């Protein structure tokens, strides 16, 4: 539970930021303001009303803030002394720095360039040293192509590595959004090959090329659907794979796979039933915890694991 005073200061801080934001961007689209301040249209109108009440002595008609909204755009004038944004507090600067730095050295570095330069600028404001220099000064060709497709509604041809099939395939997609979920970037797009909305791991897109022409977005895209803790949208075609973790690895398995635990084993280990769409993934789990993890079934999962190992051994035959 947050304390009341925190709520008040949170609200005040947002109002102050809103005044300077609006005073510096006359005619800014209301939609942008709502985005940046995470406001609904109703909340936005209430906030504007609130701003109108503020002024300076002697509080004559000319001493109050003036604001108008027309054609979906908002203008605020006459907000002396509050138009320039207040300085960043240490708490604000470090929170931004810590989040921004988590984009640096992430693969495939969607915002890496901006994150690295921003981190250095915040560090300069704080008077400390900044993050490591960015490996790339600009986004890679692949990312630039995807972002362009996204901004301009242009189809993009991608070469995508499917780990389950261990193969690259070509497909044309209509980019809808870019999602970073705990450090893994996905391109959400309508896939013309599968005729459905799909999330593609961006580090598995080998190449991307913007095609000519534009596409009409199909229906309303809601990026909020991806606001979840993992990119797992069960299709109902998953296989339940049982993995037994021995006592040596049980603590790690419990910590990481809490939601898959089926039973505790008598030897102090733990048994997990995973819903698996991709046998390569479950093989990775078994290898990571080897020799203290075992895929128990079904037989197709066991066979898939053995096939993978046999294929590796073939290289050395």
């Amino acid at each position, binding site marked *: 539970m947050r304390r009341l005073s925190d709520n008040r200061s949170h609200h005040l801080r947002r109002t102050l930021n809103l005044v300077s934001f609006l005073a510096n961007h006359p005619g800014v689209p209301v939609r942008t303001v709502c985005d940046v301040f995470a406001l609904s249209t109703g909340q936005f109108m209430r906030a504007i009303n609130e701003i109108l009440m503020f002024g300076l002595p002697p509080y004559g008609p000319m001493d109050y803030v003036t604001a108008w909204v027309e054609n979906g755009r908002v203008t605020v004038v006459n907000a002396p002394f509050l138009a320039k944004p207040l300085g960043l507090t240490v708490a604000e600067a470090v929170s931004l720095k810590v989040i921004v730095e988590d984009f640096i050295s992430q693969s495939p570095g969607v*915002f890496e360039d901006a994150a690295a330069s921003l981190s250095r600028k915040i560090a300069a404001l704080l008077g400390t040293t900044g993050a490591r220099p960015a490996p790339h000064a600009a986004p890679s060709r692949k990312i630039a192509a995807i972002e362009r497709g996204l901004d301009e509604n242009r189809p993009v041809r991608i070469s995508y590595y499917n780990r389950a099939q261990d193969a690259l395939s070509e497909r044309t997609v209509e980019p809808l959004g870019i999602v970073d979920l705990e450090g893994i970037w996905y391109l959400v797009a309508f896939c013309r090959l599968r005729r459905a909305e799909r999330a593609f791991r961006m580090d598995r897109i080998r190449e991307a090329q913007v095609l000519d022409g534009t596409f009409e977005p199909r229906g309303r895209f809601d990026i909020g659907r991806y606001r979840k803790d993992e990119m797992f949208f069960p299709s109902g075609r998953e296989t339940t794979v049982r993995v037994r973790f021995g006592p040596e690895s049980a603590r790690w398995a419990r910590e990481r796979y809490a939601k898959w635990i089926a039973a505790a084993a008598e030897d102090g280990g733990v048994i997990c039933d995973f819903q698996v769409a991709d046998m390569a993934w479950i093989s990775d789990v078994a290898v990571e915890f080897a020799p203290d993890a075992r895929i128990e079934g079904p037989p197709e999962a066991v066979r898939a694991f053995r096939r993978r190992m046999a294929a590796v*051994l073939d290289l050395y035959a």
Partner: protein
Amino acid sequence: MKTAIRKNERVLNLLAYLLRSRRPVTFDRIRADVDGYNDADTAAATVARRFERDKDTLRAVGIDLLYVDDEATGILGYSIPKPAAYMGDIELSEREVRLLMVLAAFAGAKSSALVDNLASACQKLLAQSALADAPYGVVSRHLVYPAKAAADGALSSNLQALAEAVENRRRVTFTYYSIHRDASSQRQVEPYGLKFFRAEWYLVGRCLEKSEMRIFRLDRVKDRARFVTGAGAEYDIPRDFSIDDYVGRSPWELSRKKAFTATVEFDEIGAWLVEEARPAGLTLRRTKGGAAGKGRVRNETAFFKWLVGIGVHARLTSPEDAAARFVEFVRSLERQCAG
């Protein structure tokens, strides 16, 4: 809601008034001048209490409200130092603006101290940046969701506290669960840095109990980190400290065992996958059909596991005895890990 709005309006009036004043102003002047304090019907004591609360609110949003001597008259009054109160000059590129817009939008969606501070920082920086070229739809099509940092729980509040501790060189104490020892204990740490790696947050610092550098995973910190006060609680971070020496290393680098140099041949797909993953401690040289990789290996088993993950796209070429052990290792996986 009406009183909350009136309060905000009053505090804004006070703030603008103090920012306008070139000299410290007394409470009596504020009481006479500023809307929200100047109503004659309200008892003086009530207004004074109101003013006390509003000062706290202003300080809570980070405004440096001082009670100082007026140099000319010697009379004590309230003052906000300028231009220090305002944001310094900072020029942002279009890409930085884009990133800030995405972060601001994310931040508003969930609430934790860290996220509120993040949102406010983005809003302030965006206030003085040109938005003209920023694609306005950008926010509805980008989502950044560091769920752990956003959740209103111990991890996000510790992240905020520890980031401030690093910045201000403040010693901290917390209860830490060591999964290797399967036990929790109280630690005192001088925080050196924080890093997000493979979906986890890590703190690196000098642990006073062990008098050694230690790596802490933030989700294993079991309570709220607290600042340690008192003499000797300050410290310096060595100039040559780099968090990358501790977090983000490849698992095969992490051992005290003797290192050997391994070379690996990658095919086209393998070379590309490794380039994308950028593992630390492995150098790649492009060849005709893929790439040749070279790395110093201390933990052989960890290295073998990593190689198995790349499947048929990587072949360990030297040293020969390691390749032979690798084959044995894969055979043991085949026997032990399935069926």
